[in-house]
């Protein structure tokens, strides 16, 4: 029922943008604005419908709706002509691997590769390696650590204080392994068939600031909101008029901030709600906005000193990376706790360092045996190493494929006694 309903919604979404794009391309100038609003409201309505039915996770509807909108907006802005074939638009939107969790593709970039894939032996092998690496991260690491985070987050009264730090660390590993693993799976399967999709991650935990992090994590989502919300709104007439009014009243410095602040605010409200139509996700978005604006003001203040900043020393760089890691992990607490209140209380309790002295005893209550812990640590170690080592050449590929295949087979978390765990970013 859920699947049938979702498929109907996806079909309606595809038909809406296909027809609207064809009409727009028919060069009826008067239709431009009405079509824009019709499509935006229709797709938003479909999103809200899915959210209301709690069906957003089904078949990646959230991703499809963003892709549908990007297709129409691109045609409307004259980036490329409307596609004549409805089936091609439908395939672009509903290409199965992408339905899991993105990446959020763009029609012009996907068109060539999706409709004329180039099958090669090299593509098949590199795709297979990537696919297996994704499975390794998901089944060996993410699904193994998932019960630990669930256990810690499920009882916030018991597991407060330093346990919150442990939870942050565990969830950082779990989410990274789960989401990047899923994307590796999607890109790997596609590569096997000669289809090249956009990358979605670029060593996100090496980010030196929250701004840098959002250029490395969920890249296709961040660029979607930047291109289709931030830039149009920030450079549009409405905010420019408001800027003029604010400048007249409060001066140039205040006026200049108007487009940046207000466009960013909308971006982060929408980003939050897109992740989940609830208070936790909304507040997560708003906190991202707040931190980014504080950084913006800080950077402007530093730039006004007119000195060319010296390049960060290695030590400073490491500190920035650790601070950013702490920041994004703290923000993600909204993901693991059920309510906003619980999240704030947990975060606040972190600074009391409660349970620090009894931590080693308390850890025994966590559902993770020594064998599982060993596999987890080894797997996470391998994952971290791959962030530092860039492999040259493909000579080792057959060995790596074999190692990954058997690791997934032997150490993967599945089978009797385990619940199949959905991908986090499918939620």
């Amino acid at each position, binding site marked *: 029922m859920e699947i049938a309903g979702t498929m109907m919604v996806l079909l309606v979404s595809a038909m809406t943008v296909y027809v609207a794009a064809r009409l727009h391309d028919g060069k009826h100038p008067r239709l431009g604005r009405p079509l824009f609003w019709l499509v935006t409201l229709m797709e938003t309505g479909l999103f809200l419908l899915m959210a209301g039915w709690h069906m957003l996770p089904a078949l990646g509807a959230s991703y499809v709706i963003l892709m549908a909108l990007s297709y129409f907006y691109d045609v409307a802005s004259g980036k490329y002509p409307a596609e004549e074939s409805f089936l091609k638009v439908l395939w672009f939107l509903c290409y199965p691997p992408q339905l899991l969790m993105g990446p959020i593709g763009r029609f012009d970039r996907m068109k060539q590769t999706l409709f004329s894939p180039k099958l090669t032996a090299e593509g098949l092998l590199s795709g297979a390696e990537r696919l297996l690496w994704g499975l390794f991260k998901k089944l060996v690491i993410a699904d193994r650590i998932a019960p630990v985070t669930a256990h810690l987050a499920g009882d916030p009264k018991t597991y407060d204080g330093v346990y919150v730090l442990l939870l942050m660390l565990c969830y950082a590993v779990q989410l990274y392994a789960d989401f990047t693993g899923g994307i590796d799976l999607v890109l790997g399967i596609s590569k096997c068939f000669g289809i090249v999709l956009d990358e979605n991650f670029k060593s996100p935990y090496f980010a030196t600031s929250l701004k840098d992090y959002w250029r490395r994590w969920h890249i296709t989502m961040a660029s979607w909101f930047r291109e289709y919300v931030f830039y149009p709104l920030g450079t549009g007439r409405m905010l*420019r008029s408001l800027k003029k009014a604010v400048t007249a009243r409060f001066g140039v410095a205040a006026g200049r901030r108007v487009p940046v602040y207000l466009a960013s605010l909308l971006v982060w409200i929408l980003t939050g709600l897109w992740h989940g139509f609830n208070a936790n996700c909304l507040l997560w978005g708003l906190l991202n906005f707040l931190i980014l604006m504080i950084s913006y003001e800080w950077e402007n203040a530093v730039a006004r000193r007119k000195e060319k900043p010296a390049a960060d020393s290695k030590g400073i760089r490491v500190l920035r990376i650790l601070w950013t890691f702490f920041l994004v992990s703290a923000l993600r607490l909204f993901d693991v706790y059920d309510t906003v209140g619980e999240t704030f209380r947990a975060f606040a309790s972190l600074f009391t360092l409660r349970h620090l002295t009894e931590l080693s005893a308390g850890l025994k209550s966590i559902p993770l045996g020594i064998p599982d812990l060993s596999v987890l640590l080894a797997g996470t170690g391998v994952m971290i190493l791959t962030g530092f080592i860039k492999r040259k050449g493909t000579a080792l590929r057959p060995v790596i494929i074999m190692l990954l295949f058997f690791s997934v087979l032997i150490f993967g978390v599945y089978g009797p006694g385990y619940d199949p765990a959905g991908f986090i970013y499918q939620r």
Partner: protein
Amino acid sequence: MTRLLEELHPEVDFTRREHLLEEGILDSFDIVTLISELSDRFQIEIPAGKITPENFSSARSVFELCEKLMEEA
């Protein structure tokens, strides 16, 4: 043009620097601020579709973009 860019980033020499967008010298906040100022000063509309690495690679390329838009207007 260079003066306007220097107001955003006094620490950068815009008479020489290139690949401003690609190398992250100008970020998305800078782009929005810059376009907003240019639109007001030159009475032009710079559509979001024109925000490309090529159009914003240097002070000169931004200036050329504005000239082109002024001619079209």
